């Protein structure tokens, strides 16, 4: 019963996208050939996007671009996690200092990461390090906030029980606080990853010579609107894939184990 339902749902979703692509093709056709709203080369069309995809795949450029982007995103994300976890713990250990810097952190978090690009280029030049800098600045604050707020969300009862059972500080952290905050940390990291991915694209558009962001930019330079559209779709799909297959999977597993997911 349930299984046939999910299959039916999938068919519906598939159908929706088939119709959507058909609609896109129709709009393109009407706009370019019937009404003359735009020049055929000024609007991407499904067919052109598909050709562009196959073309870049055959040259191997797309795969290399994806690998480069992934590598950068992973590195930036890793740096953010390491520094962010340390800073987040620092903030929750020292609430006074924490309260002072928290407005700053949420300020930085709300700053679009492209704003860091000029700094990055002035400080690091057109190098990998400037891209990493932008990625880190774009994602680190959500790691800090996630760590801090997940410690705050631990029910006081968990700590009381541990103390009356004789837990010292090390045991309290290892066996109670860390497992207690884990699901919230994972959902914080999930958000941080998506910030990192976005920041990476801004940085690559401005400062890279290879990578998905650069492919987007080179599509513009060559006035190849289909390449631009195709790279955008690839960026979206990769973003969704990591979110769904990595973070969402881990998060659901943790929550299900605790009975917090129906």
């Amino acid at each position, binding site marked *: 019963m349930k299984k046939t339902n999910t299959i039916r749902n999938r068919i519906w979703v598939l159908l929706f996208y088939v119709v959507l692509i058909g609609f896109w093709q129709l709009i393109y056709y009407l706009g370019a050939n019937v009404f003359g709203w735009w020049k055929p080369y000024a609007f991407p069309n499904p067919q052109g996007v598909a050709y562009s995809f196959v073309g870049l795949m055959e040259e191997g450029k797309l795969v290399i671009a994806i690998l480069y982007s992934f590598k950068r995103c992973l590195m930036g994300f890793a740096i953010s996690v390491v520094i962010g976890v340390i800073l987040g713990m620092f903030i929750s250990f020292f609430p006074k200092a924490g309260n002072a810097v928290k407005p700053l952190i949420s300020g930085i978090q709300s700053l679009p990461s492209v704003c860091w690009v000029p700094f990055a280029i002035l400080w690091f030049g057109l190098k990998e390090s400037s891209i990493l800098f932008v990625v880190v600045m774009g994602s680190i604050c959500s790691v800090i906030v996630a760590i801090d707020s997940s410690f705050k969300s631990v029910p006081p*009862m*968990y700590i*009381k*029980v*541990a*103390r*009356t*059972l*004789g*837990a*010292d500080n090390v*045991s309290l952290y290892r*066996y*109670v606080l860390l*497992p*207690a905050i*884990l699901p919230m940390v994972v959902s914080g990291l999930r958000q941080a990853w998506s910030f990192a991915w976005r920041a990476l694209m801004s940085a690559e558009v401005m400062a890279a010579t290879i990578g998905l962001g650069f492919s987007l930019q080179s599509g513009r330079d060559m006035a190849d609107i289909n390449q631009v559209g195709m790279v955008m779709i690839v960026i979206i799909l990769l973003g969704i894939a990591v979110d769904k297959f990595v973070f969402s999977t881990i998060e659901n597993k*943790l929550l299900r*184990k*605790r*009975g*917090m997911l129906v």
Partner: protein
Amino acid sequence: MSIILSNVSKTFDGTKRETLSDISLNIEDGEFICVVGPSGCGKSTMLNLIAGLDRPTSGTISVDGREVTGPGADRVVMFQEAALYPWLTVIQNVRLGMKFIGISNDEQERRAMHYLKMVHLWDFKDYSVHEISGGMKQRTSLARSLCMESDILLMDEPFSALDKQTTNKLREELTSIWSETGKTIFFITHSIEEAVYLADKIIVLSDNPGTIKKVVENDLPRPRHIEDADFISLRKNLLSYVRKEVDKVEKDEYDTK
């Protein structure tokens, strides 16, 4: 270990009313103390103070002559809510406290098995917390507390979520653990019958502010039987002390008569 409360008062921050007022009480080594009193009179507060989870506003609490300054495994608490860790299974919850105090794996295994069997949860030992019922959670929490084999046991309505039969059985088990080990037990209950069955000394708390209204010594010989004439007369006696104070207890008593 003995517990001494001298002139203990507690007013919570942000409240004007005194929750506990001038409580003085000597609990001797190996005594079984039951505390009864209406809901909200400060029973759990008193337990938290002895546990060291909260500090009295005035007065002192000492255990074996040393003032209580914080919680510790010498005074294991069984809380009113089961308070298990949802990321652990039943047996992992039970073993965690023993892990904290450095008990060997073999001994952890042995005690966990012994007490989980006692509370009839051995078959459920690998269940997650969200897969067991409220009463099963309470029994897990009981097993976790007993596994610690502490000198003092502070229990906050440990059988409140259980059916009559299970309660009766666990009362017996607790009494025999107590008489075998000579623990000091501080036990909060809503049931006067339970207090008369278990306690050496019954403390009746009054409400608003919480003070000790009466201390009733219970010398009935053990094992006790709830149908015995002495048992019934002590129960009635106690009921008359608490009648005015303990609406909830009174009601429970008449309901189950």
